[in-house]
C-alpha cells in the first residue's frame, strides 16, 4: 500500500535536472554538445592514439588527401601530416579559447557585479572604464599587447581576456541592477548579511542563467580570436594551432587547398557546436520559452 502511494506522488524535480531536459529537447543543441565532446576527446586522446608527429616531415610536401594512404588528409608545405596537425593544433586553440573565456567572464562578472551592486559613483567610474575598453579596437590592441610582451600562449590568453570582457560586464551589471531590488535581497539585508554575502551568495546564483548562456558565446568569441591572432602570426610560433596552420599555409592556397580548408573547418565546427550549445542553454534557462 505504502509502495503504491509513493509511486503516485510527483517528485519535485531539481531545476538543474529540468533545465537539462529542456536542453536535450533542443535537438541542435544536443548535436552541438556531442560534436564538442567528440572534438575534445580527439584532441585530448588523439596524439596517443594516432601516433604521427605533427611537427616532422612524413611524406612529400603538398601530398593531396587520398594520394597516400599514410596521410589521409594530405601534407602541408613542409610535408607535415595535416591530420596530426589538426589533432595537436586543437589543443592550443581550445586551451587558449577556454582559458581566455574564463578570464573574460571573471573580469566581466567582477566589474559588472560591483558596478550594479554599489551603483552611484562606483557604477559611473566602472562603466566609463568599460566604455573605454569598448572604444579600443580589440584586435589591434590585443596584437599590440602580444607584440610588447612576447608571443606565448599565456600572453595571448591574457590579451584576449583584457579586450573581450566589456560585454559580460554590461550584462552582469544589468542583471545585478534588476535583482538587487527584489524582495529576497531586502530580506537578506534585513538579517544583516554582509555585502559580499549578498553579492556572491544571494544575487549571483540568481543571475547565473543569462550569464552562463553568454559565457558559452564568449568561449566561441575567444576561440575565433585565438584563431585570428595565430593566423596573423601573433601566436606562439612553436606551438601548432588551427589558426597557425591556416596562416602558415596561406601562401600556397592555390596549390594545396586542403592545407587551409581542414583547419578552418575544425575552427568552424568547434565554434558552431559551442553556439548551438548556447542556444540550447538559452532554451533551458529561459522560462518564457518553456511552453513552446
Amino acid at each position, binding site marked *: 500500500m505504502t509502495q503504491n502511494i509513493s509511486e503516485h506522488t510527483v517528485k519535485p524535480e531539481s531545476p538543474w535536472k529540468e533545465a537539462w531536459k529542456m536542453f536535450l529537447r533542443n535537438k541542435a543543441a544536443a548535436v552541438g554538445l556531442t560534436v564538442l565532446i567528440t572534438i575534445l576527446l580527439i584532441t585530448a586522446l588523439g596524439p596517443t592514439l594516432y601516433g604521427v608527429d605533427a611537427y616532422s616531415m612524413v611524406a612529400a610536401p603538398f601530398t593531396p588527401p587520398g594520394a597516400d594512404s599514410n596521410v589521409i588528409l594530405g601534407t602541408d608545405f613542409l610535408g607535415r601530416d595535416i591530420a596530426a596537425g589538426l589533432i595537436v593544433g586543437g589543443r592550443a586553440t581550445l586551451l587558449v579559447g577556454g582559458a581566455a573565456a574564463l578570464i573574460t567572464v571573471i573580469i566581466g562578472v567582477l566589474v559588472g557585479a560591483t558596478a550594479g551592486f554599489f551603483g552611484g559613483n562606483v557604477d559611473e567610474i566602472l562603466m566609463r572604464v568599460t*566604455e*573605454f575598453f*569598448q*572604444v*579600443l*579596437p*580589440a*584586435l*589591434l*590592441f590585443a*596584437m*599590440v*599587447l602580444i*607584440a*610588447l*610582451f612576447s608571443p606565448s600562449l599565456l600572453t595571448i590568453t591574457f590579451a584576449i581576456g583584457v579586450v573581450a570582457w566589456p560585454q559580460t560586464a554590461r550584462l552582469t551589471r544589468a542583471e545585478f541592477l534588476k535583482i538587487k531590488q527584489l524582495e529576497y535581497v531586502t530580506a537578506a539585508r534585513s538579517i544583516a548579511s554582509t555585502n559580499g554575502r549578498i553579492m556572491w551568495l544571494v544575487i549571483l546564483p540568481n543571475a547565473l542563467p543569462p550569464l552562463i548562456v553568454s559565457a558559452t558565446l564568449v568561449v*566561441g568569441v575567444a576561440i*575565433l580570436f585565438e*584563431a*585570428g591572432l595565430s*593566423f*596573423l*602570426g*601573433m601566436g606562439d610560433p612553436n606551438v601548432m594551432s588551427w*589558426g597557425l596552420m*591556416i596562416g602558415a599555409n*596561406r601562401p600556397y*592556397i*592555390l596549390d594545396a*587547398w586542403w592545407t*587551409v*580548408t581542414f583547419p*578552418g573547418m575544425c*575552427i*568552424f*565546427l568547434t*565554434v*558552431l557546436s559551442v*553556439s*548551438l550549445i548556447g542556444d540550447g542553454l538559452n532554451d533551458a534557462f529561459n522560462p518564457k520559452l518553456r511552453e513552446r
Partner: protein
Amino acid sequence: MNFLLIIARRTFYAASLVLAVVVLNFLLIHLAPGDPAEVLAGEMGGATEEMLREIRAAYGLDKPLASQLVIYLKNVLLGDLGQSFYYNRPVADLILGRLGPTILLVLSALVLSVCVGTFLGVLASRKPDGFISALITILSLVGYSAPVFWTGIMLIIFFAWLIPIFPTSGMATFGATGGVLAQILDILHHLVLPALSLAFIYVAQYSRITRASMLEVLSADYIRTARAKGLPEKIVIYKHALRNALLPVLTLAGLQTGNLISGAVLVETVFNWPGLGTLAFDSILARDYPTVLGLLLISSVVVVFVNLLTDLCYRLADPRIKTSH
C-alpha cells in the same frame, strides 16, 4: 535638455575617451620591456652605445616619459603623429595614404550587409516560420562560427582558383592601363571578394534583428490602421513598418564599427588589400611604435565618431528621445 548642448557634451566626452586611449597606449608602449632605440638601431644594423644615444636624441627618447607624452599630445593636436621608425615617413602621411582603401572596403561591406540583411529580414518577417526565416537562422549560425579570414580564403579557392572569375589579391591590376572608368571597374572587380567575406558575418545579424524588429512593429496599432485605410501592402510594409523597424538596425550598425575594423585587419591580410589593416600588421611586427600609436588613435577616433553619429541619428530619427539624457 537643449539638443546642441547634448551634442557639445557628447563630443567633449568622446574626445576625452580618445585622449584616454592615446595616453594608455603611449604609456604601455614606453613602459613595456624592449627599447625602441634598439629596435631602430637594429633596423639600421648594429647598435653601438653612441648610435643608441644619437637615436634617442633624434626621436626625443632621452627625455623623461612625462615630457615625451606632453610633446606627443601637443604634436597630435597639430596633426603631427610623429615619424615612422620603419617606413621613415611621417605617420600621418602613411595613414592618410592607406585610409582610402580601408574606407572603401569597410563601407562597401557595411552597405552590402545592411541592405541585403534588411531586405532578407523584411521578407522573413512576412512569414515568421517560412523558408527565409529558416535560411536566416542557418546563415547567422554559419556567419557567426566561420572565422572571417577563413571565409576569405575559401572564397579565393572557389572564385579565384576553381572558377577563376575574380582576382586573388591587391586592389588593382598591376601595370593596368586604361581610362578612369576601366580603372574604377578594375578596383570594383578586386573589391568583390574582400567585401563579400567581411559582409558575410553581418548580413545574418542585420536580417535577424530586422526580422525581430519588424515582427514587433507589424503588430502595432498604426499598422492595423494603415491596413484598415486600404493602403497597398507594399506601402504598409516599406513605408509605415520598415521605417519604424530600422532603429535597432541603426544601433547595431553603430556598435559593429569596432568589430568591422578588427575584421578589416584580417580580411586585408588575406587579400593583400593595401589599407590600414595591412599597415597595422606590418608595423606591429616591425615594432614601429609611432605608426602603431597613430593607428590605435585613428581607429578609436573612428569608433567614437561613429558612436556619436549613431547617437545623433537616433535622436533625429526618433523624436521621443530627442531631448532625453
